């Protein structure tokens, strides 16, 4: 069993309630932080921990916190990003559903460190019952003196508010989220100014992911240095991985980032192998926007070294032969899955979710979907593959927010690694409607551990 810092108590009966959470040692860390630590000391521990943002970009949390502007007399806000809409990602939901008080304790410590008296949890609208669980937990925490005015006699006031979104992936992008929280369409803002200077209601704002903020509790409890000893290199602490697709045991797993990808997929403690005894074909290891990898490049890097479940190793080889940790949404495709179709569903997703502000993203995502649809329906031409490549290149880097890149990368990686499958579709228009390319891609049969 690996180290568990976040989900250690997830299976304790009743842990969702305040009483059980408290009995299990909950809120003791918040008490220590508020009563015994200065704001600077807390930020320092977070910096030492090496914690990287768990929302997808992996930006160091302590550094982000130290950027927040502190103009005299202007309120500051902490906003918890619980929009969780990147396909393959469902870890924040698990954390909030089963351990709502862990998040609230993390929010309390973080709000104190950032000086946020009104902290918001922006949760995707569809998670209505999870929003209710959080609201109930907030009521309990308030009753017990952990939220409200003059908490623990420290003079610090903190209220936490749950704000439900209404169905828009783009609102996970931090400036779109802020717009949405202001009651507007989720159109990302042009940066700068960054939220740390002018965010919610033009006030200094820090936006962090649910898992990032929950991790503040073990960091303050253990101390930043101890936390940083877990994991490897710049991948410190533990990471939640939501595993899905064609595996025996889909679910949310907490890993310390020293486990190999192969062990994660095949060991019984985690994914339990490929469902139905089938062979592994491909994997999108960090949420739908990160590059898809064929099995051989997933398990070993281009240099032939074992690939591990951490930030550095997953991105080893860059986009030519690697991928990214991203949000930790780990999607497995078995030998029967069609790469063209999978790419099509993702292209449709990004077309649907584009906010429409920039033409490369608005138009490009639509074209990519149409062309992929054409190939999938057995009407593709060879020139379509180059056209797709061309479109994705024209989107990447030419948009206001990273959704454009997120839409381009999956298409680029699918063509890069599975070009012959696209060609097969085009050369076998009829056959491709009734059967699959399967694993023909691999001259070398894929290694399947015993």
């Amino acid at each position, binding site marked *: 069993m690996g180290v568990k810092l976040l989900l250690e108590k997830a299976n304790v009966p009743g842990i969702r309630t305040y009483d059980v959470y408290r009995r299990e040692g909950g809120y003791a860390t918040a008490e220590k932080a508020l009563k015994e630590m200065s704001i600077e000391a807390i930020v320092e521990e977070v910096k030492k921990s090496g914690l990287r943002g768990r929302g997808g970009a992996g930006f160091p949390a302590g550094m982000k916190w130290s950027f927040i502007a502190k103009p005299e007399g202007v309120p500051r806000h902490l906003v918890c990003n619980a929009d969780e809409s990147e*396909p393959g*990602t469902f870890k924040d939901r698990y954390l909030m559903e089963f351990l709502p008080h862990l998040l609230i304790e993390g929010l309390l410590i973080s709000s104190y460190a950032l000086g946020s008296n009104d902290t918001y949890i922006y949760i995707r609208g569809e998670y209505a019952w999870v929003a209710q669980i959080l609201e109930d937990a907030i009521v309990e925490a308030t009753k017990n003196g952990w939220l409200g005015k003059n908490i623990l006699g420290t003079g610090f006031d903190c209220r936490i508010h749950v704000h439900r979104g209404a169905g828009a992936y783009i609102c996970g992008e931090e400036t779109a989220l802020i717009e949405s929280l202001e009651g507007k369409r989720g159109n990302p803002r042009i940066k700068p100014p960054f939220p740390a200077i002018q965010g919610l209601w033009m006030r200094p704002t820090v936006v962090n992911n649910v898992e990032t903020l929950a991790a503040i509790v073990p960091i303050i409890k253990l101390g930043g240095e101890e936390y940083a000893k877990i994991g490897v290199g710049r991948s410190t602490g533990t990471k939640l991985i939501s595993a899905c697709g064609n595996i025996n045991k889909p679910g949310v797993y907490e890993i310390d980032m020293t486990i190999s990808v192969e062990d994660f997929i095949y060991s019984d403690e985690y994914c339990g192998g490929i469902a139905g005894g089938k062979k592994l074909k491909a994997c999108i290891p960090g949420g739908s926007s990160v590059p898809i990898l064929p099995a051989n490049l997933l398990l070993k890097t281009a240099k032939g070294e074992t690939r591990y479940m951490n930030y550095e190793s997953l991105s080893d080889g860059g986009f030519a032969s690697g991928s990214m940790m991203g949000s930790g949404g780990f999607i497995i495709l078995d030998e029967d899955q069609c790469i063209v179709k999978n790419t099509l569903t993702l292209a449709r997703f990004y077309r649907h979710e584009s906010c429409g502000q920039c033409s490369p993203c608005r138009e490009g995502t639509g074209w990519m979907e149409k062309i992929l649809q054409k190939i999938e329906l057995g009407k593709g031409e060879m020139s379509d593959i180059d056209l797709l490549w061309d479109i994705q290149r024209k989107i990447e880097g030419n948009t206001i927010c990273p959704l454009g890149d997120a839409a381009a990368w999956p298409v680029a990686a699918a063509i890069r690694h599975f070009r012959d499958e696209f060609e097969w579709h085009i050369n076998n228009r009829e056959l491709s409607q009734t059967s699959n390319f399967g694993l023909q891609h691999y001259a070398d049969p894929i290694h399947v551990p015993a």
Partner: protein
Amino acid sequence: MSLQFNNEQMTEFNRLVARYPEGKQKSALLPVLHLAQDSFGGWLPTEAMDYVAGLLKIEPIEVYEVATFYSMYNLKPVGKFVFEVCQTGPCMVSGSDNIIAYIQKQLAIQPGETTKDGMFTLKLVECLGACGYAPMMQVGKIYREHLTKEKVDAIIAEYRMQVVAQN
């Protein structure tokens, strides 16, 4: 005006608005539109949007802009139960196509349509954050996960029973 929150809904409205600073009541727009949709029969007629604009002291256009942007707001009437089935990659590789085809057959409707008796609407939606419990759909405020044909039958029967019991 005929559409109005009742006392209980008004209390909820006030609770929502109180979460935001003075003068920033527009921030409550998304939550208030959810409340309006739940209160006024599952969708947002123009009258409902105008009413919300009045309550929040903003222009109606500010409400229309938002209501048309977010996928959870229905701008047309929908059935009593809306089956929102996820069709994105992870669900697709886990068999959502078969489930969608089966629901279409059982309800005899196409995606986007409502059954003649006004009971069910079928909508195809994008990832709902339940990829590990696929195939899945959202019905109202809850998720129905690990769907199989048998489960779909049972769910349809359950909602039919619910309506019979209410009448």
